[in-house]
């Protein structure tokens, strides 16, 4: 009796019977199937790495490439020119956007690939740097105020 005919005769009990899939027994075909099965995880791993590296790139390059030269020019004293004013506006906007984009990409990586160690490390590094930055800004403000008070201003 054919296998399909047998299944039809058994009816609902076919769900409990563990029927083996019809795999061709030629040795050559197994070599074709195996890479296909492992292709999916490697694709997702590629996407996970792409997201994480893109996030890291935006986190480091965005604010540093755009903002740090502007701050250095500000210290030198070129800030009074109108060109510098426009550059400051654009630099500040792009720096903020790239910083936020880095956070967004990291969170997408964390949500999509929950077991990703890279994304987890990125998240804790970002949180750590952010917390230290907030504390540093508060301490800087306190020290500036104390300095001005001591000068009698």
């Amino acid at each position: 009796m054919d296998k399909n005919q047998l299944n039809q005769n058994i009816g609902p009990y076919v769900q409990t019977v563990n029927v083996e899939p019809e795999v061709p027994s030629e040795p050559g075909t197994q070599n074709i199937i195996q890479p296909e099965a492992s292709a999916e995880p490697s694709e997702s791993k590629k996407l996970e790495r792409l997201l994480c590296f893109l996030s890291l790139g935006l986190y480091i390059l965005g604010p540093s490439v755009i903002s740090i030269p502007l701050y250095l020019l500000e210290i030198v004293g070129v800030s009074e020119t109108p060109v510098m004013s426009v550059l400051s506006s654009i630099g500040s906007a792009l720096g903020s956007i790239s910083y936020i984009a880095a956070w967004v990409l990291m969170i997408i990586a964390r949500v999509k690939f929950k077991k990703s160690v890279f994304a987890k490390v990125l998240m804790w590094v970002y949180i750590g740097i952010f917390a230290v930055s907030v504390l540093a800004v508060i301490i800087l403000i306190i020290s500036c105020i104390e300095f001005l008070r001591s000068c009698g201003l």
Partner: protein
Amino acid sequence: MTNMFNVSIANMRFPIYSTIVIGSIILGIVMACIIMYREGLKRSTIIYTCLLTFVCILVFGLGLNVTLTGNLRSIGFTGAGGALGLLIGACASIFIHRDHEEEMLASWVVSAPLMYGLAKTACHVAGCCYGIPYHGRVEIIYESDHISRFPVQLTESAVFTLIFLIGLILLLATSKPILTSKIVIAMSVIGKFSLDYLRASHYESETALSENQILALCMGILALVLINTLDRIFLKKKGIKNG
């Protein structure tokens, strides 16, 4: 007229200001978390949304002034920047998680007036954003200039806390998150716009509209356009779901 509550404010140290501002932001985030939890959002969604929105509020709150003025020395926290950051953070989270989108948006919009209202107490303590010269039952005198002033910061605190409470009641009672968000934004813009007339900066500038009022109007329009666009996307999605 006798002054019943003649309060004299000493020059307070600046750290109190930043501590109250960050504290009020954190309190607003906690409130948004409670609303999101009550609306049935996943725990991971709530945690990541809070993280992203907190970062956005601080980054845009500090950066907006520099972007608008083009002067790096003008870096400082602004309410409009914080509101823009909150909107960007909430919208980005909606597209990342796709989990109870309308409720997530409403929880952040409803919590925003609470953050602003509580942060205004910091202005009262620090002595910035003070009111017009005024002699009445409740007047504030700062030691820096010894002028009786209208307590506009405390009035803003009370008004925005009231807006938060109205929004919260509307959200819980009507279960119409998008409508609630629009009402809260409209009330906030009207509140901010009208109370700015009681600020000394507006009184002294002698212009019809101050920068704060223009910013408030722009932010309100931007928020309403954004919510309308998101609403259309949600409706489209629901239409696809229903077939």
